[in-house]
């Protein structure tokens, strides 16, 4: 709370009730990141809006439930957002998303093609991962290709907005290295994807949410633990679209 923010603070009421345009919304949300007082106040005041919304309750059309359930059944869930600090005891996982630095580089790299990977900075839990992989691989428009890393394949689905990797008998990468997925764009740009490690049996699984505009190839490289923002290793597998 300081004086130069006086005008921003005054947006609090309008913000809570949705009476801000996109620019004011962005301004206020930037402010919220730094202002504990406003965050608490917004949380508190938002309950007022919820009560006003509840007071509008009316029976929805009978058709709505079926439509929602049908669409949800074809909609992959986002993984939880995990705070990077809360991971002290995290032992080596089967799969790992790039850490914060790489994620930040990534968010710049991907801005043009509309992905939402960057907010996830650590490993999603395995069951969520398996579910997402399953949703992509069972999508009506799923398209499967050989990956050539042990006995493995890559499945992409426009409809699910994602690409899934699954494999068996994959060789171990070199000491201290992990595999990383890349999207190669038609302008030669390489968009970093998740890193992953085969387990003792050579099994692995990974998922990346993305659209496929301008994507010409998928590539797998070996990268130092935690992944890279730009590829540093040679391609160990390439799939062309």
């Amino acid at each position, binding site marked *: 709370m300081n004086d130069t923010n006086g005008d921003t603070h*005054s*947006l*609090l*009421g*309008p913000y*809570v*009730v*949705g*009476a*801000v*345009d996109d620019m*004011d919304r962005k301004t206020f949300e930037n402010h919220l990141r730094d202002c504990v007082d406003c965050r608490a106040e917004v*949380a*508190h*005041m*938002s*309950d*007022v*809006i*919820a*009560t*006003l*919304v*509840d*007071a*509008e*309750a*009316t*029976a*929805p*059309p009978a*058709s*709505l*439930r079926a*439509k*929602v*359930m049908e*669409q*949800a*059944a074809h*909609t*992959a*869930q*986002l*993984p*939880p*957002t995990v705070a990077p600090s809360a991971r002290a005891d995290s032992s080596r996982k089967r799969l790992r998303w790039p850490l914060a630095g790489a994620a930040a580089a990534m968010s710049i790299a991907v801005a043009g093609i509309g992905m939402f990977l960057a907010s996830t900075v650590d490993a999603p839990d395995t*069951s*969520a991962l398996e*579910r997402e992989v399953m949703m992509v691989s069972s999508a009506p428009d799923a398209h499967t290709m050989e990956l050539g890393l042990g006995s493995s394949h890559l499945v992409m689905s426009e409809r699910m907005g994602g690409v899934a990797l699954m494999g068996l008998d994959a060789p171990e990468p070199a000491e201290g290295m992990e595999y990383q997925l890349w999207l190669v764009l038609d302008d030669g740009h390489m968009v970093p994807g998740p890193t992953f490690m085969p387990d003792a049996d050579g099994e692995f699984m990974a998922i990346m949410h993305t659209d496929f505009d301008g994507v010409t190839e998928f590539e797998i490289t070996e990268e130092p633990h935690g992944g890279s923002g730009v590829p540093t290793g040679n391609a160990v597998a390439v799939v062309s679209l």
Partner: protein
Amino acid sequence: MNSKRHLKVVGDATPVASPTPVAEAARTRSALVGHLLVRVGRGDEAAFDELYTAVAGSVFGVALRVVRDRAIAEEVAQDVLVEVWRSAARYRPEAGSGRTWVLTMAHRRAIDRVRSEQAHTDRLRTHGAKATGSHDDPDTVVDIAHREWEAQRVREGLALLTDRQREAIDLAFSKGFTHREVAASLGIPLGTAKARIRDGLIKLRDAWEEER
């Protein structure tokens, strides 16, 4: 529930046994929604079905209030509910109640929709009728306060507002006006519009928070 709202008349002051069943139900449901969201975040489809039952009426209702068209309201409600499914794992219980998370998302989406449907000037002309003295729009804030906002505590809270605060909040909440449009529509300075909205919300919060 739906039939009751039409029985409300202006000045209805019938006392309701306290604590109000509405408040009790709201509290129970609020806790339920939070629990369900956590389960939905793990991909639990049965929990999503229960969550639908708990919130779909409010989600559709607020969409209908704002967009004023059943078909569009149904589309908005569908988008919101699928988004709840998609992003449930991002809900953080420590940041607020699950009910608020879902319902404020619903309100915001409805506003986004009405803004994209209509040009701002168009809405100002249709609803910002104060300057021309038109009373054609049946959904004035008075109607909303006394006829449709059904829960006793909602009415009691709204009754604490000045007419001007109610009017400003209604233009924002029900019509999707930005604070600039509220100011223009009421012919008041921007700072005054912001203050009316905020002061009104604070009064409502104070009136309702002991029941949460």
